């Protein structure tokens, strides 16, 4: 109805720029990426040599130790960091919500890490983790504990990176879950009180089930972002020592840019994009089924 009154110019004209960006800068490059993933690309004498190699790049994925480490480390990071963030975020959200207006300042301050560039987060923590003068080792020194090489030790490096990720992104979980906690129907929790529920029973039997969809969505949101982690790793460890903190994004970066192997790098990218889409689709399916049967 509206469009009839406006004519076709506004209708098509207003969508046109978005379509251009969509086709030229989203579809085309990804299509190009898929195309490149079937190629072996090399430079000789300043000229690009392209050779169609079929699925060879994809076959090579299985034997890539860097990629293997990247996948394992990324999965560990996603599961551990995201779980901690959701738990901590939920606890903070409930605390803030029950403090009501007196928690306004806390809410503001908690947001800060989300807004700071990931690279700077990396820089800050690189200084804090520093073996010689980092504040963490200084603190340990005061307690009489010998200095620890947080980022240099193969056993600790991944854990150290995960701690940074938790610190960086717990505020985001907090924010999403706070909206959910504050959106809980007040009268229902009052009904539970009158019906004789203790605070714990009210949480366990009423609030938690009602929060579950929000918790699930927060987990998915956070997992997607955690999966793409790059900035902090780039600055903190560059994937090292060895492959202790190698993550998928960093593997792509190394293969594509540092080793200048666009064909193989594209194959990793394409494989990653499709795997992630598949995992998310399955997760959403499971959640929908769970909702339906409840």
């Amino acid at each position, binding site marked *: 109805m*509206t*469009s009839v*009154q*406006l004519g076709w*110019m506004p*209708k098509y004209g*207003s*969508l046109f*720029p*978005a*379509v251009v*960006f*969509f086709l030229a*800068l989203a579809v085309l*490059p*990804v299509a*190009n*990426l898929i195309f490149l993933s079937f190629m072996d690309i090399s430079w000789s004498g300043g000229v690009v040599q392209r050779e169609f190699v079929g699925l060879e790049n994809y076959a090579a994925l299985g034997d890539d130790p860097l990629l293997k480490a990247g996948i394992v480390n990324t999965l560990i990071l996603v599961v551990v960091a995201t779980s901690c963030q959701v738990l901590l975020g939920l606890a*903070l959200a409930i605390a*803030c919500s*029950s*403090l*009501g*207006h*007196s928690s306004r300042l806390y*809410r*503001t*301050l*908690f*947001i*800060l890490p989300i*807004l*700071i*560039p990931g*690279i*700077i987060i990396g*820089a*800050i923590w690189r*200084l*804090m983790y*520093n073996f*010689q*003068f980092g504040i963490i080792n200084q603190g340990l020194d005061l307690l009489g504990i010998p200095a620890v090489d947080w980022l240099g030790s193969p056993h600790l490096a991944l854990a150290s990176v995960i701690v940074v990720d938790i610190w960086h992104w717990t505020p985001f979980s907090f924010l*999403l879950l706070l*909206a959910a906690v504050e959106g809980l129907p007040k009268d229902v929790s009052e009904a539970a009180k009158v019906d004789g529920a203790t605070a714990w029973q009210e949480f366990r039997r009423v609030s938690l089930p009602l929060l579950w969809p929000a918790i699930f*969505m927060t987990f998915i949101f956070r997992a*997607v972002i955690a999966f*793409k982690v*790059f*900035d902090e790793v780039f*600055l903190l460890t560059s994937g090292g020592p060895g492959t202790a903190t190698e993550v998928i*994004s*960093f593997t*792509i*970066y190394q293969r594509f*840019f540092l080793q200048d192997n*666009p064909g193989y790098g594209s194959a990793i*990218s394409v494989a*990653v994009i499709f795997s992630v*889409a598949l995992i998310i689709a399955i997760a959403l399916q499971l959640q929908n089924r769970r909702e339906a049967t409840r």
Partner: protein
Amino acid sequence: MSDIVQTKRRMPTDKVLLHVAMIAAVIITLGPFVWIALSAFKTQIVLLMGDITFSPVSYNFDEVLFDRRSTYPQNFLNSLIVAGVSTTLVIVIAFLAGYSLLRMNWPRWILNAFLVWAMLFNLVPPVSLASAWYELFRTVNLSIDLVALTLAHTTLNLPLALWLLISFFREVPRELEEAAFVDGAKFLTLLRRVIVPVMMPGIVATAVLVFIFSWNEFPVALALTNNKTATVPVAIAKYVQEEEIKYTQMAAASVLSAIPALIALIFGQRFIVKGLTAGAVK
């Protein structure tokens, strides 16, 4: 409200404990920022010695901002240009597209296609996109130009903006537009005089978020810039790659780079919360 009143009388100890826990959380959240801000005022030697007390110096900021060899002012300017221009583009394009998709009788699947794009696009690691764009812009000889990075950031943030603005558009009652039509408004008048003013909080929320995300973006900027066109995050990453890391200058540069985030937090906290939660809740 009533909850607070109720429990204030009954169990003040609970509230006190909660406040203590929250203050601890605030210290953990802000501690690292305070520490790096302090480090930025130390000399390299003081930092390496790990002394607790020190006399603050502005040396690091002088070096970063005013030294002839420092590229930081240029980096800062690059970041401002890229984030500013791409945010403007994103908002205009997403606003028009969002309005068109929601209110102009497009077939349902077209709206859904855009929403699915917005969702799927979030799944793709920016490094993959960086590589795709690198290849694309290389073929048109733009690979290290600010234009390339600006276009890339526009594409990167367009889905988010579209997603947010569509959710805000849904809150605008259709009757408002119909009233304007009945009053004889043309399309552009309608947008300028009715829709934009009504949507202003949503537009600001989206713009603040897009600007911050563009300012913070690292992998794409790393791929599409050189020394001259590097943005702030790329410049800071470079400190680490130098032979002898200038820690205190890195700290100073970091502090300066956090300025937009701080400004946004102080003046636009309401908008940031609105933007960050609207994207997820809908």
